């Protein structure tokens, strides 16, 4: 599974430009799926199973996109000014490396600051791609880039850019690979444009019209020095979301997930995330409303070039997702 994770996280595919990662996923899953389609917004919708009398139509969603940068101006000396795609924060950028979709690499530099204790604001940062003039700069306004950072295997812990949310993509792919029998009609949706406002999942959910929706995404942790006050830690199992700032998970879905974890002997944590939301929000609010929840992979340093997850949490997430899909479900 680590080899798959490495391929996924080292692919450059910011919101709206998910094709490279979609092609990668499609190449792997097409033999395991009963039906595959790509919708108008680029969501990859993969069906497994037929609805039996005891089954439901269940939608799972993990987003393919990652945060990134987009060129807004190339100045006369060939420096590239940029805007952001999704929740990029300026203190994660200076000295970092990026790669454009067209293959061009660059480093992020900044204007000289009067006060070195301050952080560069976006308008004082630029990308240097090694050009010497506007004319020889291989970047044009509108070109898109993402962090470039190799996958790092620390044994128990894995580090990479775009663990958010490629780790969940890997969890869903591995679940699909292992899932042999299900009473449900399960739609594995690899969604687009989550980082800019759960846009892909909004239209995918309308199309799938699920009876239950579960997002798989990363969540923050409270287990680092003087960090966020939050009762989620790496290594204590996947987290079952109770609430975030965009959704209150359906309590019946929360119970179903927690009961299933306990019966299967899989460790889990309950999660309340005070800032952020997931594709589950889009599923919950589609059409006439859908019971929705979210399985979260605890992750440190979210939206930096080095997002860290625990590999056991990842494997336990696969186990829990598989257990959820293998048996009939009555929400109560």
């Amino acid at each position, binding site marked *: 599974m680590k080899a798959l994770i490495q391929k996924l996280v080292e692919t450059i595919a910011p919101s709206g430009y998910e094709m490279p990662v979609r092609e990668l996923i499609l190449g792997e899953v097409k033999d395991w799926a009963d039906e595959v389609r790509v919708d108008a917004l680029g969501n990859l919708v993969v069906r497994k199973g037929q609805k039996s009398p005891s089954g439901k139509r269940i939608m799972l969603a993990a987003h393919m996109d990652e945060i990134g940068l987009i060129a*807004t101006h190339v100045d006369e000396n060939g420096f590239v000014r940029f*805007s952001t795609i999704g929740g990029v924060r300026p203190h994660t950028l200076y000295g970092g490396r990026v790669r454009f979709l067209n293959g061009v690499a660059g480093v992020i530099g900044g204007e000289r600051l009067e006060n070195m204790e301050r952080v560069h604001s976006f308008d004082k940062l630029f990308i240097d791609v090694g050009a010497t003039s506007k004319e020889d700069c291989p970047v044009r306004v509108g070109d898109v880039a993402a962090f470039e950072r190799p996958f790092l295997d620390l044994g128990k812990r894995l580090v990479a850019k775009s663990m958010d949310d490629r780790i969940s993509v890997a969890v869903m792919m591995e679940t699909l690979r292992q899932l042999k029998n299900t009473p449900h009609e399960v739609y594995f949706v690899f969604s687009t444009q989550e980082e800019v406002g759960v846009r892909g999942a909004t239209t995918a959910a309308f199309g799938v019209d699920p009876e239950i929706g579960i997002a798989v995404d990363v969540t923050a942790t409270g287990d680092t020095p003087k960090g966020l006050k939050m009762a989620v830690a790496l290594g204590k199992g996947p987290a079952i979301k109770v609430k975030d700032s965009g959704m209150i998970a359906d309590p019946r879905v929360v119970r179903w997930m927690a009961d299933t974890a306990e019966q299967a002997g899989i460790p889990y944590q309950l999660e309340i995330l005070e800032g952020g939301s997931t594709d589950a929000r889009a599923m919950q609010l589609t059409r006439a409303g859908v019971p929705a929840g979210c399985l979260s992979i605890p992750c440190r340093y979210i939206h930096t070039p080095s997002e860290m997850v625990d590999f056991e949490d990842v494997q336990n997430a696969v186990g829990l997702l598989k257990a959820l899909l293998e048996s009939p479900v009555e929400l109560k």
Partner: protein
Amino acid sequence: MEHTEPSPFEISNDQLDLLERLSNAVAVSGDEREVRAIVLEEIQPFADEVRVDALGNVLAVRHAQGENPLRVMLAAHMDEVGFILVEEEEGGWYRFEVVGGIDPRVLVGKPVLVGKEHLPGVIGTRPIHLTTPDERKNALTVEQLRIDLGNENGKKVKTGERAGFATRFRQAGPSLVGKALDDRLGVAALIELIKNPPPNVELQAAFTVQEEIGLRGAGVAAYAFNPDVAIAVDATPANDLPAWDGEENTRYNTRLGGGPAIYVADAATLSDPRLIRHLIRTAEEMGIPYQIRQPGGGGTDAGAIHKQREGIPVVSVSVPVRYAHTPALQARLLDWENTLSLLYHGLERLSPQLFSEDR
């Protein structure tokens, strides 16, 4: 399909008259009837279907000449930023709220038109004779300002009625000056396309309401049309004047005279890359000038459209305008003509094969 024909649009006084009527009409978000009346009058002889939906959008269809055409939605918003009367005070003054995004610093001392009858009002302020230098350092807030209708007329309007800037449309050499060019330039472009449509597509024109307060009309319009593809036609700021300190201006958004602005990304939408490429190819092959709007904030009707139902591929094209959301916008007539031309030829060359291309 290679086409070298010029666009079928001959710009004459007819178009300028239409732009003038549209720009001078007052249609602040939520009360778009004046512009809706002009739109209906203009398109009814040409459109195959016209209806006004529950929110007040005008939805018009012009059928294609062939079989199984692509259904293409074009959206331009009828509404403009302005004011809503909140409470009458003594002497024909009204407290008001701003509708849509207006910098309060541009309000002071501006004439406005109030209510259905376009009653003349003034957003007044204490004159320089009676203010201190310290007072003049701070911008006045909306709470400190009133619309003054001149006593008697205060009784002819009610709380809840709208007011808009009073600027009259003018031509200034190659340029147009008016209050509501955002987005009457787009409205006028859609009217022209209904009159002279490319024959290959089913044209679904949405003249939308309430764009300036959150893309509200376009969402339901797209739900109703359920198109194969959509293009929002709008106006976008050109902040292209030189920087005061001689530094290179790196945040111009667009440039006046640079041609239609094609969107890659704004705060509400990531344009479909295939549609971006299609418009760029069209412009380059037809010799139509164009520019890429600098990616960044802002939003157009495309932001609401693309998330409807199972998703709709979208792109936006805007006419660059200086001084957007102020009483006096400035645009180039040639940019508007080139926008029309890009839309016409872009639609004419659109085929379903585009959507089997890689993104």
